[in-house]
């Protein structure tokens, strides 16, 4: 609690931004997001779009895993459902871009509800394993439902069009994906100011007490699955549009682990955590690539080492953060902020 910001109503105390300073910082963030495309080159814009897609998906997973406590290793497969919905609509119907994206979200929500059914019966580790099974079954569907997914050959998607403009490059696509990401993140942050969001947290903290308090466990668990899948569907839809072609290999189990790693590294149960985690985990491989480029003259076959080193670092990050910094980057961020708040009174 900061000094000099008294509140007169509960609503004011619970609002997302409680002080004028926070509004100013938020404004600066939006402004820099808007200015970014004018200073960044195509490569960095590409990364920015990818980060946004990952932020959407990681935020969804954080709602399910971080806030509701239901571990899921199916987020990538759900993204696949969204991507294939977009791809099918793009190839077989002339519906506009926005509608396709929404359809991807809705379709994935439905699939997520079915995949969430085991959560009514099992929880914790068993649920994680059930979602692994669900993701393999979805993978099988992607490969073998030839008439819709075109099997292993994959499927191409035209770049999205809106108001007669074609968003076929990272520098134009940026203007599509960033506003949606901001919107989705704000929606997620607002969710936890409502009864539904608080119910999710209660389910996570102690499901039995939550049920004693009158929370309908099956309903809220399924609702959490539905919301997480909706986020995955939107992210998957963007993924399909962004890369222009998808195949069953695009959404492996490793990608689900990537999202789980992102929210662990970022911080479970915080919105900031999903953002920081997605940014960090997307940029780490790129950093490694720079490292390999530097090593190139000294080490034979340095570029062949890139993929295994990525896998290794990826695992080390998961293990390291869980062992030494279980609350993730969000906690580090809070510590840094507190240091500056209390400086120079405490050192």
């Amino acid at each position, binding site marked *: 609690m900061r000094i000099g910001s008294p509140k007169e109503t509960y609503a004011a105390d619970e609002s997302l931004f409680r002080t004028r300073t926070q509004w100013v910082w938020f404004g600066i963030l939006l402004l820099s997001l808007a200015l970014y495309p004018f200073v960044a080159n195509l490569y960095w814009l590409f990364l920015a779009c990818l980060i946004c897609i990952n932020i959407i998906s990681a935020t969804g997973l954080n709602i399910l895993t971080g806030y509701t406590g239901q571990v899921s290793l199916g987020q990538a497969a759900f993204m696949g459902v969204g991507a294939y919905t977009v791809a099918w609509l793009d190839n077989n119907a002339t519906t506009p871009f926005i509608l396709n994206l929404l359809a991807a979200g809705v379709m994935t929500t439905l699939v997520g509800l079915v995949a969430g059914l085991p959560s009514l019966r099992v929880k914790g580790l068993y649920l994680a394993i059930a979602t*692994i099974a669900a993701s*393999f079954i979805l993978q099988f569907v992607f490969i073998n439902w030839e008439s819709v997914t075109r099997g292993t050959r994959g499927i191409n998607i035209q770049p999205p069009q809106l108001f007669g403009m074609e968003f076929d490059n990272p520098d134009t696509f940026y203007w599509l994906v960033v506003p949606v990401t901001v919107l989705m993140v704000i929606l997620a942050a607002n969710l936890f100011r409502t009864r539904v969001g608080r119910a999710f947290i209660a389910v996570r903290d102690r499901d039995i007490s939550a*049920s004693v308090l009158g929370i309908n466990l099956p309903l809220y668990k399924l609702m959490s699955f539905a919301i997480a899948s909706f986020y995955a569907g939107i992210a998957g839809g963007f993924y399909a549009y962004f890369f222009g072609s998808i195949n069953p290999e695009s959404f492996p189990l490793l990608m689900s682990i990537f999202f789980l790693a992102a929210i662990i590294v970022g911080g479970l149960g915080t919105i900031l955590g999903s953002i920081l985690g997605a940014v960090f985990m997307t940029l780490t491989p790129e950093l490694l690539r720079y490292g390999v480029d530097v090593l190139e003259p000294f080490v034979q076959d340095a570029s062949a080492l890139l993929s295994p080193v990525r896998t*290794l670092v990826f*695992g*080390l990050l998961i293990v390291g953060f869980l062992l030494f910094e279980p609350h993730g980057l969000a906690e580090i961020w809070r510590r840094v902020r507190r240091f500056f708040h209390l400086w120079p009174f405490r050192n």
Partner: protein
Amino acid sequence: MDWLFFFEVSLAGLGFGALYALTAVAFVVIYKATRVINLAMGEMLMLGAYMFFGFAAALALPIWAALILALVGGALLGLILERLVIRPMLGESPISVFMVTIGLSSVFIGLVEIIWTAAPRSLPSFLPSDPIFIGDAFVAPKTFWSFVIAAVVIAVFLVLFRFWRGGVALRATASDQGAAYGMGINVPMVYSLAWGVAGLLAAGAGVLLGSIAGISSEMGFFGLTVLVVVIVGGLDSVLGALLAGLLIGWVESLAGVYLGGEYEHLVTFMILMVVLLLRPWGLFGTREIERL
């Protein structure tokens, strides 16, 4: 229907199932002692197989020496993991520990690909290769001998669990840690023991699996099927692990032959879903009383 063919396919499936059972026993030992679901089991298996490969092919040691070194290496790996990674996670939520093992599996894959590259390789063959017939049915000699070895190893370990002091300590710890500690059992030592034994079993299973199917950095996938096996059998039941291992191996091989290769994993994961929905504690596992 060609019964002889069916019989041969079943035998091949049971041979593979024995490897599932062997790995599943390692899985169950870890779960019973430390309540950790070790998702890196498949990768521990892989590391064991690669160690054997390294000793036998790269260092050109005799097969028996390479085998012993790989088994010792596997046991050491288990001990080190327990001490460095799992012990510090004691008391954390089971989910965190589960995710640590996911991270470990990624680390192992990375290590193997850095040292040996991702290219698949074949292990030097050391099993007898005379064709084997049971009645009229042909069994691939590698499958047959790995079945025999797996069966003998499992039998030895069952006897050890029953009569050896360490095995009794392990079972005591599994049923009640506090009471076991009170009776003078060094519970942390039991944790180490369980991981060491599991590492040893995994390395052995890895060498057998590698000699049948070759080794690659993707063979850790085997661990996911073993996960299905232990869930179906019941996480804390050795008997369940054995029966479910054979069952899953058999069903998988039938599905692979009669439905097509792509159905192998689909069928096992379908079985997993059904078991999780109807009987989450597995066929022989302890039913934890919790109703929600």
